[in-house]
């Protein structure tokens, strides 16, 4: 049976969380602006005003609705939607003005994060398209991948094409959403490694009629990027994808377009790929995320008005069947792509049960010193059984000591695990897929955001892993800086 109230609270929890992050970002941005620049432009003032109105409206209504029964919620929702929708639309209109920030603030953490993910995956760019100057990150209003032509430098003639990864400004500090950016980076990898062109020549594509074939060719970019991001990051990508697709305000990704299939199909082939990985991760992470995603869809179908006004109409978009490949075709297509030699050459090994064990250790809410665990694996690599043996072969033993900090894929999945397993025995309803976010809503809506002790506790809990992420990234950066010299010597 549909738990309407919890799903409803879930959605607004995310909305308020997102608004709060945007609010924080704008405050930081104003504080970091150089002297002489208008620190708080009028549009930002309007935006913040609208944001405050929206937050207040949600706060008021959610507090009211939580106190009602599920039946009453069902009866009164139309009034609530109308008011909340008006506030949300005003917010969206104003947000449009600042969605593209012409002079992006540098975001070194994001860049280092992406480089680390690629480095850990073992991918080596042949054409240099992943080199430092070949792409840039733009704080923007949405996730996207695009090319721009930049003016020539002293070393080049003519306009130079530059790959641009767009990341929503409001999400720049949320590592659990960053995997979406890995998907955008995978667009570059998919093209330059020849996976996309090889996939477009598969018999399944070439055997289709003109319109369907054209669509499949266009969608290949997106499918390859999805699969690569899944292989690079495991469930963490699925988590970011679900969060992005299910809760992002424009909702354009939910239905099919010229560039990508509908979200349901994408979820299907991502899930299929994930199920080839460790079973322990599937039970801990994947099933929960899938349930959350399906719950989100169920809410859409439950409320026609809500669906047509707030979200894109998925059913209508899916009704024109003639010019689009079927879901079965897409699943088969995705399965064929991962078998391509060019794909196997690029994609890293799937996560193992050993990885799952590290993720489980890092994901525990009460962690001790193992939170930055050494990646040395005694069972696999260590050949010395005693200290006496080392005395005889000291240099050989030293060779086995090379050590790296935790992999990003471990930390991200652990953070996700921690978030999903967050529980408070007094409030969690048995089996509720959205217990965590419902709890968040309570914290956000029932008490003033800034003064909430509960919210502070939530933040502190996640902050521990944030620090591990940054510490791990820094260690890896210094490691790679000295690695060449050390190996040569």
């Amino acid at each position: 049976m549909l738990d309407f109230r919890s799903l409803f609270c879930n959605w607004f929890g995310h909305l308020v969380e997102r608004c709060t992050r945007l609010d924080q970002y704008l405050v930081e941005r104003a504080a970091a602006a150089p002297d002489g620049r208008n620190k708080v432009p009028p549009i930002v003032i309007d935006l913040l005003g609208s944001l405050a109105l929206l937050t207040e409206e949600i706060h008021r209504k959610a507090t009211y609705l939580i106190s009602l029964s599920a039946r009453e919620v069902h009866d009164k929702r139309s009034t609530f939607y109308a008011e909340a929708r008006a506030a949300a639309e005003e917010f969206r209109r104003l947000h449009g003005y600042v969605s593209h920030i012409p002079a992006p603030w540098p975001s070194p953490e994001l860049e280092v994060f992406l480089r680390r993910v690629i480095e850990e995956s073992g991918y080596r760019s042949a054409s240099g398209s992943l080199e430092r100057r070949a792409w840039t990150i733009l704080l923007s209003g949405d996730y996207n991948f695009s090319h721009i032509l930049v003016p020539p430098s002293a070393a080049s003639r003519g306009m130079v094409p530059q790959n641009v990864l767009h990341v929503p400004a409001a999400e720049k500090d949320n590592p659990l959403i960053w995997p979406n950016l890995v998907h955008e980076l995978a667009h570059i990898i998919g093209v330059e490694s020849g996976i996309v062109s090889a996939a477009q020549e598969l018999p399944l594509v070439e055997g289709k009629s003109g319109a369907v074939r054209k669509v499949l060719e266009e969608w290949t970019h997106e499918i390859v990027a999805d699969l690569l991001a899944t292989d690079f990051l495991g469930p963490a990508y699925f988590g970011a994808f679900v969060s992005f697709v299910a809760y992002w305000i424009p909702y354009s990704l939910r239905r099919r377009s010229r560039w990508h299939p509908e979200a349901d199909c994408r979820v299907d082939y991502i899930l299929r790929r994930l199920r080839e990985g460790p079973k322990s991760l599937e039970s801990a992470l994947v099933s929960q995320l899938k349930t959350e995603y399906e719950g989100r869809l169920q809410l859409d179908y439950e409320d026609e008005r809500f669906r047509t006004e707030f979200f894109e109409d998925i059913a209508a978009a899916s009704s024109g069947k003639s010019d689009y490949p079927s879901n079965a075709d897409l699943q088969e297509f995705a399965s064929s792509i991962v078998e391509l030699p060019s794909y196997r050459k690029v994609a890293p090994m799937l996560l193992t049960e050993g990885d799952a064990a590290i993720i489980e250790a890092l994901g525990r809410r009460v962690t001790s010193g193992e939170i930055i665990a050494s990646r040395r694996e005694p069972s696999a690599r260590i050949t010395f059984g005693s200290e006496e043996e080392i005395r005889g072969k000291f240099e050989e033993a030293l060779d086995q000591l090379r050590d790296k900090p935790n992999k990003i894929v471990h930390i991200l999945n652990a953070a996700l695990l921690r978030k999903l397993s967050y529980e408070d025995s007094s409030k969690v309803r048995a089996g509720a897929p959205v217990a965590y976010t419902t709890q968040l809503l309570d914290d956000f809506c029932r008490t003033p955001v800034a003064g909430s002790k509960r919210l502070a506790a939530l933040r502190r809990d996640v902050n521990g892993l944030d620090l591990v992420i940054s510490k791990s990234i820094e260690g890896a950066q210094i490691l790679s800086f000295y690695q060449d010299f050390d190996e040569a010597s």
Partner: protein
Amino acid sequence: MKPRILTDSEVVYALLTNAIVVTPLLSKSQVGATLDLRLGTEFVVKKMDRLTHIDPIWFNQLERSDPEVMVRFYETVKLVDPTTAFVLHPGQFALGCTLEYIDLPPQIGGMLEGRSSWAREGLNVHSTAGLIHPGHKGVIVFELLNAGSHPIPLYPGIRVAQLLLYELDSVTRQPYGLRDDSKYSRYVATNFGRPWADWEFECLGQKSRRRPAELKREEQHPGESERAQPEQGRSETS
């Protein structure tokens, strides 16, 4: 019985079996009779313009009212790029930390010392607090002081210190991280000292007559108490 200092082979064996965790261990050259430790990416300095003097009684009360309040007296400098230096000027004091996260078992402790090469330039890495307790988990904080005559550029990732490991005769009953008064356990970044968190200052604060007025003033006018400190301090000493 006396504690025993670990040999290089014993250190390597302990590292290989994860009895001791030092991560990331970037180079073989870090391991010998002692473990060379690298400089981390975060440096913390006091904001000298805001703090007139250290009053542990007042700080104890202030921190109890808001655990985050002390942050405003410190400035953190973050240098992620290995080619960018934090310049430590002659006579300057700053806090840094190891790049390595160190996890010691309950029977192994460490003694932090500087490396001779840097010591000859006047760099001190600790100020009489070089003992690492058995059971320590987290980064080790450096109390950096330039006692030389020229500024010293400190790059993240360079080896500035060494850790001598010793083994106790038996396992300690209270490893550092499990003690009630362990203030610096499981940190992954440079953290400033908190001598005022000792229980003695809580006791002193409760018996001090000036506490309520100051605390009240701080609550009513945040930030003004720092400016009011010098006058109050003088009046008390006179």
